[in-house]
């Protein structure tokens, strides 16, 4: 537990120390941080500021709370950001991009178009869009992005994702006493901190947790107790959930989180970029587009194959993927939690509900808004749900 808090502190510091470096903001997990790093910038995820002040007057009341709070953060960003990369993820994101372009004239913005299908044609098209992003980043830095830089960045990001996956495995399998709050705080920090600084520190943490696990050769004390007491195994499915009050509430009650599908964890770290370690250089004169852009194609492949957001066309495939996890992780109850007004997430619920009921697994449906989060009410509903399990 202590370790997690030190960790937290350290990375908040490391974040403030990055203020003078060239940060590029990004929002959606379809943004290839690899290219940002290769261009010599520091990717920082915009996670929003929960206290809305000026932002409310730009958007309607029934508009994505994450995007509103991100806008608040962008209004306050000042000169801490060299640019912001948006993705064509959803209607709300398109309008946030427009708002930034119209009212935030000092910060360069780029829109990365992300296909909704995952066939070869889509992956080829996305490769072309990554090329556009590369051009944008090159014009921003004034330097060409060499292939070896991309290859190095891929390697770095693969390392980070591997560590995050290892850490999550330890957490979900109950090999550590780190609580839900701290787990998600670390997930958030992993997208806020300088990748190069984050990895060695994080490596130490994961190593020490691994050590603990090996010394103990069995589940942690807490998990053992929860197993003995038959505490229900739960999975969380949601979108961009970063509500601290929610994590604190979940940490304070008796449940075992064994799996998740969220923008800040699984959808971010799962799956590596292939060929990251031995990217082949450009081969001039080679007519085949595929070969010429091997690295960008590999990025395209990864981002269009990773655990998806509900925005993608084939929601059925996504639901199947989730059900796979439900079975694999022996989930007994699912908490579905959506930020309000997220059309794509909300439309997935009837599908998820139906698929879960086939497996006879109950699901708790929650919609939250940062400004309207009523911890007491959510706690009551969650506890009642757990009692039902």
């Amino acid at each position, binding site marked *: 537990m202590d370790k997690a808090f030190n960790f937290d502190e350290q990375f908040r510091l490391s974040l403030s120390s990055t203020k003078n470096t060239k940060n590029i903001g990004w929002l959606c997990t379809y943004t290839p941080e690899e290219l940002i790093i290769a261009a010599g910038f520091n990717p920082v995820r915009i996670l929003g500021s929960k206290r809305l*002040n000026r932002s*409310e*007057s730009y958007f309607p009341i029934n508009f994505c709370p994450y995007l509103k709070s991100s806008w608040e953060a962008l209004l306050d960003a000042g000169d801490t950001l060299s640019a912001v990369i948006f993705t064509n993820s959803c209607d709300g994101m398109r309008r946030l991009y427009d708002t930034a372009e119209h009212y935030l004239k000092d910060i360069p913005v780029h829109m990365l178009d992300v296909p909704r299908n995952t066939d070869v044609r889509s992956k080829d098209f996305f490769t072309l869009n990554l090329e556009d992003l590369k051009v944008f980043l090159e014009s921003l830095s004034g330097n060409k992005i060499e292939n070896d830089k991309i290859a190095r960045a891929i390697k770095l990001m693969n390392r980070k994702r591997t560590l995050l996956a290892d850490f999550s495995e330890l957490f979900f399998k109950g090999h550590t006493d780190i609580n839900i709050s701290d787990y998600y705080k670390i997930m958030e920090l992993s997208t806020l901190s300088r990748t190069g600084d984050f990895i060695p520190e994080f490596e130490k943490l994961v190593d020490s947790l691994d050590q603990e696990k090996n010394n103990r050769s069995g589940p942690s004390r807490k998990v053992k107790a929860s197993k003995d007491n038959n505490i229900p195994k739960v999975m969380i499915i949601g979108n961009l959930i970063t509500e601290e009050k929610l994590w604190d509430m979940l940490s304070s009650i008796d449940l075992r989180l064994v799996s998740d599908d969220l923008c800040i964890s699984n959808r971010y770290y799962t799956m590596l970029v292939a060929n990251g370690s031995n990217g082949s250089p450009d081969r001039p004169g080679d007519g085949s587009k595929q070969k010429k852009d091997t690295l960008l194609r590999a990025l395209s492949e990864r981002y269009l194959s990773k655990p998806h957001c509900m925005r993608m066309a084939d929601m059925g495939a996504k639901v199947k993927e989730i059900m796979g996890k439900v079975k694999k992780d022996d989930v007994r109850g699912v908490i579905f939690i959506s930020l309000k007004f997220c059309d794509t997430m909300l439309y997935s619920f009837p599908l998820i509900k139906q698929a879960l009921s086939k497996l006879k697994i109950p699901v708790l449906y929650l919609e939250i808004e940062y400004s*309207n989060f*009523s911890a007491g*009410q959510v706690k009551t509903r969650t506890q009642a749900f757990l009692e039902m399990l």
Partner: protein
Amino acid sequence: MYTCGIDIGSVSTEVVILENNNGEANGKILSYIISPTGANSKIAAEKALTEACNSSGIDRESIGPIVATGYGRINVPFADKNITEISCHARGAISTFPDTRTVIDIGGQDSKVIKLEDGNPIDFLMNDKCAAGTGRFLEVMARALEIELDSFTDIFLSTDEHVDISSTCTVFAESEIVSLIGQGIDRNKIIRGLIYSIVSKMTSMVERIGLEEPVCMTGGVAKNLGVVKALEEKLGVKIKIPDEPQITGALGAAYLAQKI
């Protein structure tokens, strides 16, 4: 000749009788009445007009044009014309403060921001369908706290601390307050928090439309100096309040009646 403005709101009905100084822009207020609307706005309008006549000692017949405004404006059979609250509040505000550029009106179940240019309304915004950020919100909260609404001002001024009320929804905020009281949190802090919550709602409306000075506030809630002060702090401007902010709509209607 006299003109009359009548503002039938969801909570209260106001009547203003105005002396018409030969068509001059500013006549004198002969009398005004504020009374509850109740279930039947037609009856309320009739009653308020009779009262206003009685208190000013004039006959019904001596009143010339009558303009009705407010939600009940279409249910006033004796009105010569009905004009929306937007135009009436704007007109009422400039009769008191001629150079007003922004009018903030918080009424019983309605709040609005009106932008003026040379005394004419050029843009406006009204609250969305819920009661968040209206007088009703404060009323419900006062009831939950078992405190008179009138004492909100003194309490607001007596403390610097507040708790965040995260819910702007009246229903949720009420239960949030109940649980805050349960946690033993100082009522005064809750009240300050409530005032900030209504003010933050209004601020975003003002910013949506673009703040221009001078700012005038009208409607019943303008009598609550705690809200006014908090709003001044948040917007960073001085806010002008008419002597009787609640009759601004009716007053504006009476002035607009002069043009009929």
